[in-house]
């Protein structure tokens, strides 16, 4: 059995994060941990999120307790297997060097919201070596280049030193090597590796600055991609006479908490959903996962992307209660105080871009839900006021007629409030 | 043949016999791994043919290949070490009894697949033809091997391309444990070869001089570019198909009778003594030398270095990556 000691460090989320505060350790020393399992919670200026265990083993040391802050890269804990001796661990701790951040290349560790993939860079992922090793300095983390492309570079005499490719995360592609070789054709001396041209036909071109995706963005991207790839979407658009909604809303303005148009729509939709089990459901390969109650994810925009906390048993909520709960959810999203699981278990999603004046839009269904409602802005013309609803449906679970009937009933309900 | 040539021939005949007899003895002690197929009784064929060949000429043999190896000039001590599996063996312990080869002597290997050697030897002859070289190629196959397709493909190709090739069929009457009469539709083995378009003769394989004469004709035909020919030589094998073969197919009396009547060595001695070409004293000296050589071979083989696990991985390719 080889001794394998892994470092747990303060991660870097986002370009600007310089330090993080440990809000809680989710495991105690002596506990067994699995690679990818949430290990501790760290709070930065922007978000609170959990850090996954970088390796499987035993949490042998906690070096920074909850409540304390550390700069990015600080060693906060040690995971090793039972074979590693205390002396080995002491030696590891003593020789540990926090990874330094190189220019333009940032080592990141994905939070648990994202997939449990190991980070691309060599920095501080679970070491594959069997000896205990200190993590490689992030500044020297290599960009990816496939062996055939490396061989091509060798054969063309292209130096890879400092070269940043045009692939994701600076991956050096075959076309990059060929371009550099062509540029250098006829030149002597050592290569000046240029990733993108600075001048084209005498005019300056701006070099874009790499802003690495943070964990939240990556998670969203992954989910969006999955939804688009896997769910056969179709869309139904319906115009709703918004005047009854406006009238109703106006009537509340005088008394305390006033529901927004969106709250009204959420409330009405919640009551309708249990009548349409195919719409108010999750999809699984084996069958429809049917809900008796409506659990509606309310899309809220944040700096880091859309988060949609779930309003549970929304069909049982009175309007006033619903309004209050939605407001409270929004608040916690903004303050980054969502609890674990608050983003899960929705049977339906409602998103609204009306405040931006968007007339109508189509939303991407969040798997494993089967449908999603997109609400547009109210547009007035003369005496009238209309808003557009767009229902996105998963055609595996919902046919056109079912979706249309639901949307028709929703419109009728909204117009008949 | 001159006196020197005769003495040399005798030496080789005796060497082949004593090597096999000694191998048999050592094999029974369990020190030689695997199977072994003894050539004892058939020496006149290998020696009779190989007397005409130089190191440049190529031969390919069968699983019963010790005799051909020795007749072609391979070092008996290195051969014995190979049987022992030592890294100082001809094939560094990688081939063993059935795959002994010495390319420096034109011995392209004993081959354990019946009939496989014939086309390969045709290739050696083809190389000679393409390179305008003067070497000839000889393949040996048993009577059992005359029923396998590749032998006829090889014969046909050699005829069509007019190659310097000699096919030697060693008819000992047994294809493993089955008599040739039961498996050869046409018992005339020479006739089969002739049907492929080349001259083919049958000779008494116990008579060294008969083999030698026929081989001389075939070799000079080949060297002069007249194409391939076949020699069918009949001789008994004194031992089983392989050591350990219970020989259920013939009785001990039959075998004893064969050894009395059909032994090429007494016949050779008889002939050269009668004609006065060689004296019994000279022959005895050779016998003694061979006996000592065999003792030395076995002694050295027992002490020779053994292979290690690394040797498993060597010589699969000239260069793999």
């Amino acid at each position, binding site marked *: 059995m080889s001794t394998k000691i892994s470092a747990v460090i303060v991660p870097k989320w986002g370009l600007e994060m310089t330090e993080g505060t440990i809000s809680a350790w989710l495991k105690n020393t002596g506990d067994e941990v699995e690679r990818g399992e949430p290990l501790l919670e760290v709070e930065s200026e922007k978000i609170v999120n959990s850090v996954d265990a970088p390796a499987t083993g035993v949490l042998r040391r906690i070096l920074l307790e909850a409540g304390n802050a550390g700069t990015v890269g600080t060693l906060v804990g040690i995971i090793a297997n039972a074979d590693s001796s205390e002396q080995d661990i002491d030696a590891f701790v003593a020789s540990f060097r926090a990874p330094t951040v190189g220019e333009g290349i940032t080592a990141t560790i994905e939070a648990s919201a994202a997939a449990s993939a190991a980070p691309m860079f060599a920095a501080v992922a679970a070491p594959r070596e069997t000896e205990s090793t200190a993590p490689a300095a992030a500044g020297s983390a290599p960009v*990816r280049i496939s062996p*055939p492309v490396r061989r091509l570079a060798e054969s063309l005499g292209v130096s890879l030193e400092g070269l940043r490719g045009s692939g994701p995360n600076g991956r050096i592609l075959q076309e990059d090597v060929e371009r550099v070789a062509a540029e250098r054709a006829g030149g002597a001396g050592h290569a000046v590796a240029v990733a993108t041209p600075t001048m084209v036909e005498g005019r300056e071109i701006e070099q874009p600055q790499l802003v690495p995706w943070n964990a939240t963005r990556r998670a969203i991207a992954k989910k969006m991609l999955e939804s688009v790839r896997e769910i056969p979407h179709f869309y139904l658009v319906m115009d709703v006479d918004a005047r009854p909604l406006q009238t109703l809303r106006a009537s509340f303005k005088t008394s305390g908490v006033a529901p927004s148009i969106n709250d009204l729509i959420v409330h009405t939709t919640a009551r309708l959903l249990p009548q349409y089990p195919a719409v108010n459901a999750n999809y699984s390969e084996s069958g429809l996962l049917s809900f008796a109650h409506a659990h509606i994810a309310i899309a809220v925009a944040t700096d880091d992307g859309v988060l949609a906390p779930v309003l549970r048993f929304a069909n049982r909520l009175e309007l006033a209660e619903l309004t209050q709960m939605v407001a409270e959810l929004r608040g916690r999203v903004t303050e980054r105080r969502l609890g674990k699981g608050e983003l899960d278990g929705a049977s339906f999603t409602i998103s609204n871009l009306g405040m931006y004046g968007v007339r109508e839009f189509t939303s991407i269904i969040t798997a494993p839900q089967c449908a999603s409602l997109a609400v547009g802005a109210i547009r007035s013309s003369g005496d009238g006021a209309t808003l557009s609803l767009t229902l996105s449906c998963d055609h595996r679970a919902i046919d056109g007629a079912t979706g249309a009937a639901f949307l028709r009933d929703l419109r009728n309900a909204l117009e008949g409030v | 043949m001159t006196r020197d040539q005769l003495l040399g021939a005798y030496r080789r005949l005796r060497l082949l016999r004593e090597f096999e007899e000694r191998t048999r003895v050592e094999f029974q002690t369990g020190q030689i791994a695997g199977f072994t197929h003894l050539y004892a009784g058939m020496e006149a064929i290998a020696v009779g043919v190989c007397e005409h060949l130089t190191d440049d000429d190529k031969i390919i043999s069968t699983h019963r290949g010790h005799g051909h190896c020795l007749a072609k000039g391979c070092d008996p001590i290195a051969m014995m070490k190979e049987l022992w599996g030592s890294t100082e063996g001809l094939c*560094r312990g990688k081939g063993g009894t059935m795959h002994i080869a010495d*390319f420096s002597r034109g011995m392209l290997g004993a081959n354990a697949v019946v009939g*496989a050697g014939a086309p390969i030897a045709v*290739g050696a002859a083809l190389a000679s033809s393409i390179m305008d070289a003067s070497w000839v*190629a000889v393949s040996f196959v048993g009577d059992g091997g005359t029923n396998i397709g590749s032998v006829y493909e*090889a014969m046909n190709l050699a005829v*069509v391309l007019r190659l310097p090739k000699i096919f030697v069929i060693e008819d000992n009457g047994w294809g493993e444990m089955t008599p040739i009469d039961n498996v050869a539709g046409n018992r005339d083995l020479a006739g089969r070869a002739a049907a492929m378009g080349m001259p083919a003769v049958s000779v008494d394989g116990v008579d060294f001089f008969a083999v030698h004469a026929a081989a001389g004709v075939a070799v000079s035909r080949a060297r002069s570019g007249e194409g391939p020919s076949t020699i069918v030589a009949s001789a008994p094998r004194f031992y089983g198909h392989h050591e350990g073969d219970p020989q259920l197919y013939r009785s001990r009396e039959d075998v004893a009778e064969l050894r009395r009547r059909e032994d090429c060595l007494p016949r050779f001695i008889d002939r050269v003594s009668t004609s006065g070409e060689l004296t019994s004293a000279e022959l005895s000296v050779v016998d003694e030398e061979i006996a000592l050589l065999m003792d030395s071979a076995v002694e050295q083989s027992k002490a020779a270095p053994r292979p290690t696990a690394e040797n498993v991985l060597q010589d699969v390719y000239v260069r793999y990556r």
Partner: protein
Amino acid sequence: MTIKSMRDALNEALHHEFARDPRVFLIGEDVGGFEKDGVPVEIGGVFGVSKGLYRQYGRKRVIDTPISEAAIIGAASGAALCGLRPVAEIMFADLTAVCFDQIVNQIAKFRYMFGGQCACPVVIRMTTGGGRNAGAQHSQTFYPIFTSFPGLKVVVPSNAYDAKGLLITAIRDEDPVLFFEPKVLYTEKCDVPDEAYSIPFGEAAMPREGEDVTIVAFGQAVNWSVQAADELRKSRGIRCDVIDPRTPSPLDEETILESVAATGRLVVVDESPPRCGLTADIAALVADKAFHDLKAPIKTVTAPHTPVPQARELERAYLPNPRRIIAAVEEALR
């Protein structure tokens, strides 16, 4: 450089090597020609790959043989043992079954059995694969089988450029090389340099680069995979590494493992049937050496466990295609 077909590229390789090395010769059925009333009649191979050689070099170096696969390959091997550089042609890979002993028991083992005393630098060229409705006995791949035999090298080019460079390497190689030419690709064209060049064995090509899924493919499956990768990129923004190992033996493991470490997802494609083939071999390699990089089960796309059918619709249904590769990539991304 000019645009040339694979057939012409291979022909050029033969001409280069014939001119460069007098030890090189060609042997096989219908590869050369014959004299009729003193006038040479050139056949140049049933697929035209050896065109021009008989006329230029004559019967000594371009040898037509009887239909005798065992003798052809045996003779080639014997000549190689004696220092020549034979290029033997077996018309269809399927027919190596007829001379299987000469290839796997003889050629593959000479150097090893004889303790390194000899080398057998023979090249055996064969057409391989389906797509020409040639039927069950003339459409098999056979390169997976020979990959499993130590002592042999196995080459499967997927385009004209690679074909020329790999054949030149094969002829210059000291070890036995089995060179499989996908018959359906003889007419496929690309830029091929006029001069001689050699492509090293054990180095994969990578016609497409991407981050999402690794596709490893052989022979004509490389082209299907490139088509699939391009379609996926265009319509779904999915980007794939497409790896063409070119030489199943020796195999470029490094490129495959590096790619899987980055993508975490693997699809292996080959037109051979599924059992004991290259797809299983590479899946096992990755499952062993890159298990912790995988985010999804390894997917393979192969022909079914049947012989190759002859009718157009049947062979089309039998062979893999870009659509099935796309589906496998999507599976891997699930």
